[in-house]
């Protein structure tokens, strides 16, 4: 090839490149499709919850599309999601956010699974002013950075377990209680801890053990021995699925008696399935439970959602799926109110969201977190031989389907 033809070739390829990238960058709405971008963890350590997230998104897309889609400017559009696998890696998640926005021209994003990955992606979406509705990042620090384009349908992490302290105080005749806490040293669990600190201050309760578990730890024997020696009213544990499973195993093995045991991630850990009767009476924080009476016109209520989900994916929906589905309902609502695909207008419409979905009421605070949906607490209740355990909602009282068993019977009587 001589010099001239090389030059010509370079010139033409450059032109083509520019052409290709410009056409792509207007592809947020193609024909009658609204393209949403999402990076979820399909492999790596979050892969089970990543799949729950994706299933939740897919179910909602299918439902909205089949029920008439999204009406904007007198025209009907259908949702479509471009997925990438972020490999449960926050560096990769940030890269994929760039890629979705710059290469695929996505103008509207759905969140990944976990606070950590959401934290990695939020600065990117914020930089490009791309609205992101996320359903699986609850860490408080996501909502204190002043992000304008981040909206979370779930309650922030510091509200996960403070209800339990209120409940314990109520059961104690309004008198302060003593609290033992064991939290893993990661962003999410430490946020839950902050919530407990607030609740303790509010109720004038005393914290007698405040253990921070190292991430690699899978032995809580020392913490539980301290609990045994000090005999607190409430034991609060949060350390993702590993923490929940370790805690229940060792509490039952070491016969630790407390009046109330409150934790997070019971659902994700399949606590009652893996531990059976040993998990009984544990109180668990949950964003959603199928027995709640919220309603919307797409999924009906929680029970209906659970049944539809089970029919399609062959397992009961964990709350991670429910909240992911809710994210799409929020997007649809915002598009229709904005009546435009302008990212600024959609963002403003999202900020003004005030709606009820099967998952709960959704209304965003200044920081983007959903403040109008309380957390629910359920208690694991088993039958006599422990072969079947159920999660019964015990708080808030408005939705309670069972009475809280309090105090927890001692191990010698179980």
């Amino acid at each position, binding site marked *: 090839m001589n010099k001239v033809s090389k030059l010509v070739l370079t010139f033409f390829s450059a032109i083509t490149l520019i052409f290709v990238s410009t056409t792509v960058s207007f592809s947020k709405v193609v024909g009658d499709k609204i393209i949403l971008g999402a990076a979820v963890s399909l492999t790596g350590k979050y*892969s089970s919850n990543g799949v729950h997230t994706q299933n939740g998104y897919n179910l909602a897309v299918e439902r909205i599309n089949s029920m008439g889609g999204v009406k904007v400017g007198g025209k009907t559009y259908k949702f479509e999601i471009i997925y990438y696998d972020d490999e449960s890696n926050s560096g990769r998640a940030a890269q994929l956010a760039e890629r979705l926005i710059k290469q695929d021209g996505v103008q509207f994003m759905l969140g990944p699974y976990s606070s950590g990955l959401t934290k990695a992606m939020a600065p990117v979406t914020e930089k490009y002013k791309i609205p992101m509705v996320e359903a699986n990042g609850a860490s408080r620090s996501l909502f204190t950075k002043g992000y304008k384009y981040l909206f979370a349908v779930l309650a922030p992490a510091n509200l996960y377990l403070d209800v339990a302290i209120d409940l314990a105080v109520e059961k104690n005749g309004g008198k302060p209680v003593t609290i033992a806490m064991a939290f893993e040293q990661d962003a999410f669990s430490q946020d839950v801890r902050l919530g407990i600190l607030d609740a303790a201050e509010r109720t004038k309760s005393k914290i007698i053990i405040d253990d921070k*578990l190292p991430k690699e730890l*899978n032995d809580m*024997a*020392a913490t539980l021995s301290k609990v045994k020696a000090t005999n607190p009213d409430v034991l609060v544990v949060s350390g993702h699925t590993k923490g929940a499973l*370790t805690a229940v195993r060792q509490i039952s093995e*070491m*016969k630790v008696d407390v009046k109330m045991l409150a934790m997070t991630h019971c659902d994700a850990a399949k606590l009652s399935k*893996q*531990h059976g009767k040993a998990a009984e009476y544990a109180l668990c924080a949950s964003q959603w439970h199928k027995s709640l009476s919220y309603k919307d016109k797409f999924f009906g209520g929680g029970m209906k959602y659970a049944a539809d989900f089970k029919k399609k994916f062959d397992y009961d929906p964990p709350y991670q799926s429910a909240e992911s589905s809710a994210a799409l309902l929020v997007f649809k609502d915002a598009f229709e109110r904005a009546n435009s695909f302008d990212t600024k207008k959609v963002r403003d419409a999202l900020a003004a969201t005030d709606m009820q979905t099967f998952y709960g009421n959704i209304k965003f605070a200044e920081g983007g977190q959903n403040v109008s949906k309380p957390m629910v607490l359920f208690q694991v209740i088993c039958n006599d031989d422990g072969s079947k355990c159920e999660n019964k909602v015990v708080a808030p009282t408005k939705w309670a389907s069972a009475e809280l068993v309090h105090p927890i019977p001692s191990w010698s009587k179980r």
Partner: protein
Amino acid sequence: MDFLIFQVPILMVQASMDGILLGILFALIAYGMALQWGVMNIINIAQGELVIMGGYIAYFMYVLGIHPAFGVIVSPVIMYFVGWGMYKLVINKVVDRDLFISILATFGISILAQQLMNFAFGADVVVAQSNFGTTMLFDNMVTLPNAKIFSGVVCVISAIILVVYMKKSKLGRAIRATAQNARAAKILGVDTEKVYAATFGLNAALCGIAGSCIAITFTLHPYTGLTYTVRSFMIVIIAGLGNLPAVAISGMGLGIFEEWADYLLGTEFRIAAVFSLLVLILVYRRFKLSRKREYLK
């Protein structure tokens, strides 16, 4: 700050017992590592993954309705062949190279094993139930899960069997000969290739036993192997190679130290405390060595 452990002295017993039981388990894993390191001069970064793999074998026995405690018999047998295969596929190509190459190779294996386990077994944290119950001492103030006691006993028995095997059997003698001088052993008719493969297999089998114990005492997850690698590495560093009693003592010592650190410094510092101790020991060793060198001059 007044310490709970001094106010409630019975906690000292609890902490020490917990530490010993934890330490024995780590010591067994560390012994496998020391064996391999001594014989082949390979630091196996994938040690923890072998442990987790062994644990999953026990877990799947539990899922199939077999008591997971039998994992301590089945798991080492399967893991022996896993280790043997690993040697034949990868390690035999790096065994004569320098330490750095073998660290890289085993690091690669460890990442691969994590991903494969994640793919095959899923990313959920799992546990196997032994339903062994609890031993209560001192008027229920000290509680020891029988599963932990079982693990401790199994680890001690396996260690004893291994020592006897290394002393008495033909392969054991060959392994020791190769560890002392591979070239000389080869000249005298020892098939070092076979010895290496067997050593790797033995190490994997030990990991299998430890893994089964972990399945019934702690939790399993494809990505939690590194903890066990680091811990066994540390025990070996402190104990030195080819010294089983020292490995056992340093394993248990670290376990007790860790539990006590939890009470005295706080849970958040227990792992930091163990690592600080490692640094101190290394510095002290170096100090001693340098004095020796001066003397030699």
